[in-house]
């Protein structure tokens, strides 16, 4: 039955995430960009709140993930600072993929370290999705594996892999040679070095600088069969890829909301020709448009998250999750560009965060 209200519990978690986002992520946006990473202290705080350990309690986590709840968290983090939010989500997708697609041994081995009270906040995971020839769409995955003498031979290239250099687990989405679409997708873990593996740190990025990333190139790299998560082609891989898209959509909605709220505050306070600039329809309509499109994208994202939770039809889920991602990133891009426009000259100056947000949204593609 139709319902648009989060549960009380979801609302509490959302508020917790919002307070961290406003009090920490937002304030550290610039310093994280300068450092090129999120601060370890902040990661420690997040681990303590349980927001970054949505794993089963048997592994020491704060409880299994509910997609919609986590989508709400992702939006709040993105509202705080998009780059640090992607840093957090990008890392999380490593162990989450192990949880969704891996077997029990793999889960124990790779998830428990993230929940460690002392060292957990220093752990990073990664999930390599997008390639040189495509975006965040499983149909566009063209990196392949084929079996050979009990091992797998890996070929292909991946781009913009958050934490790709220093992660464990370092998960890569590939497909079994000869498959297409949503069929034959596999998740496997690759070592940092080895014959045929080349991992390069991304330098001089336009945006999301606070989320370090790397590019992968595999040329007939040999990967042990034990590195494949679960059975090759298991549906957990699609669950992981769609979850990544849904959470990316959540962060993008947060980025758009940050731009909207910042532009709103500025437009209320900035006086021109004796009136707040928002009292001019040229500005007011831009803001109304941002609010309208953000609501639309958020509902699409929520809808994909509830479908993920129901989880029966993988083909429909892929379409919904990719639609949510596409539309949310689209509004994040346009809203951040419009926010800079509304701030005018001030938007171009780095005293205000909107120019950083505009660069962050632009590289979500």
């Amino acid at each position, binding site marked *: *039955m*139709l*319902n*648009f*209200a*989060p*549960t009380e519990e*979801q609302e509490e978690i959302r508020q917790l995430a919002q307070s961290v986002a406003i009090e920490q992520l937002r304030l550290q946006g610039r310093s994280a960009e300068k450092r090129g990473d999120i601060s370890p202290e902040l990661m420690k705080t997040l681990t303590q709140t349980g927001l970054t350990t949505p794993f089963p309690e048997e592994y020491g986590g704060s409880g299994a993930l509910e997609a*919609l709840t986590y989508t709400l968290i992702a939006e709040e983090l993105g509202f705080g600072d998009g780059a640090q939010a992607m840093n957090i989500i990008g890392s999380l997708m490593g162990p989450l993929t192990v949880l969704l697609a891996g077997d029990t041994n793999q889960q124990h081995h790779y998830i428990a370290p993230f929940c460690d009270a002392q060292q957990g906040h220093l752990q990073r995971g990664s999930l390599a999705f997008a390639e040189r020839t495509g975006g965040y769409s499983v149909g566009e995955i063209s990196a392949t594996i084929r079996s050979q003498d009990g091992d797998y031979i890996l070929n292909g290239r991946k781009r913009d892999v958050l934490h790709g250099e220093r992660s464990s687990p370092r998960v890569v989405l590939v497909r079994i040679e000869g498959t297409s679409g949503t069929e034959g997708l596999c998740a496997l873990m690759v070592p940092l070095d080895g014959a045929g593996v080349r991992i390069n740190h991304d330098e001089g990025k336009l945006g999301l600088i606070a989320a370090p990333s790397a590019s992968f190139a595999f040329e007939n790299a040999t990967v042990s069969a034990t590195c494949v998560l679960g059975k090759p082609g298991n549906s957990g891989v699609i669950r992981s890829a769609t979850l990544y898209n849904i959470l990316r959509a959540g962060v993008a909605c947060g980025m758009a909301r940050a731009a909207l709220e910042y532009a*709103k505050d500025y437009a*209320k306070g900035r006086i021109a020709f004796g009136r*707040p600039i*928002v*009292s001019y*329809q040229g500005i*007011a*309509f831009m*803001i*109304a*448009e941002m*609010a*309208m*499109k953000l*609501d*639309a*994208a958020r*509902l*699409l994202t*929520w*809808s994909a998250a*509830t*479908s993920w939770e*129901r989880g029966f039809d993988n083909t429909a889920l892929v379409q919904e999750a990719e*639609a949510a991602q*596409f*539309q949310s990133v689209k509004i994040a891009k346009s809203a951040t560009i419009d926010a800079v426009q509304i701030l005018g000259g001030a938007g171009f100056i780095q005293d205000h965060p909107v120019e950083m947000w505009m660069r962050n949204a632009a590289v979500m593609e």
Partner: protein
Amino acid sequence: MIDFTLSKSQGAARDYAHQVAMEEMRPISLECDRTEKIPDSFFWNMQRRFWAGAAGQARMQAQEEEEKQDNVLSILSQEEMAWGDAALSTAIPGPGLAAPPILSQGTPEQQMKFLGPYMDGQLHWGALALTEPGIGSDVAGMSTTAVLEGDEWVLNGHKHYITNGARADLVVTFATIDKNLGREGIRPFVVPQGTPGFVVGRIEEKMGLRASQTAELIFENCRIPKDHLLSGRESSKKAGFKAAMGTLDATRPMVGALAVGIARAAYETTCQWVQQELPKGFPSHKRREIEQELEETRQELEMARLLVWRAAWMADRRIPNSKEASICKAYAGGLVMKVTAAGVRITAPGENSESRQLLQKWFRDAKVFDIFEGTAQIQRLVIARRLFPEVDIP
């Protein structure tokens, strides 16, 4: 808990409306549009279908499910009806747009008196008269006047663009009791058909929604009983204006739902055309571009529908929804124009088939969805004013 699945009664209402749209509307759609006429058989069929059978069952089920969901059930049906034919769906017998102000501002006695006759199984319509030749969304400038003389209100003025105005059994007419009060002087009055001094003027010829009746209404010393003023529930000065605006909060999601219905019809028909009627030798890279565009359209349709559902769901829960109602109407109103225009453009190379004729009709129908119940610009103004309650946005 957030949930986008329909309950049994919601699904039933939608399925039933879809069946009606397919069986009663689509077959006569192009002909009614061409002739600007609707056969009586359509009215009786709709009367029969909606006062019996599955619609009644859906209503029973809804009562069992307990939560109030009139608005949600209504918009679910509206989308399907507009998928069939938006003009015909405006002409379905019933109190129509007259109902919301009577329900929200009428006393229980007034509701019984004015809405009771609609339950007798005969053909009845209702209408809402707000727009005047000089005023659209700016209701404060209303020039139709109401003056109390003894036990009667005397109405004078001129209304136009009134849907079902000539066939309505009663017209809820907005008039000012004191021009100096601006929008606070506006009150809703119930004017029955046949009241002396109440004259139907011309019926407009339109670009789209041609089968829908759009009438001019003239009031010349039109006298109605004192108790035909709808402000029984609230005695505050703003009641009249609130009735007018409250009506819009309820009807904007419905207009949004109609827009989504047309847009969906155009989307589906364009998809079918690409699959079945694409001319031989059409370049494959162009076909891929079209398919990409249609996929984005599908996503936008989904977003428009969710925005409409949200606004209606809020109305059922009595959560203030002015902003959300305007958002869904503005989004869907813009989208339907975009989708129908794309349909006309994409199918341009084709033969003159029925799917092309339908697309061209929907293209003509679509434009008004960005105009009536508040233009695209008015919706953005409403949204902005709600976002900035403390700022005066003129």
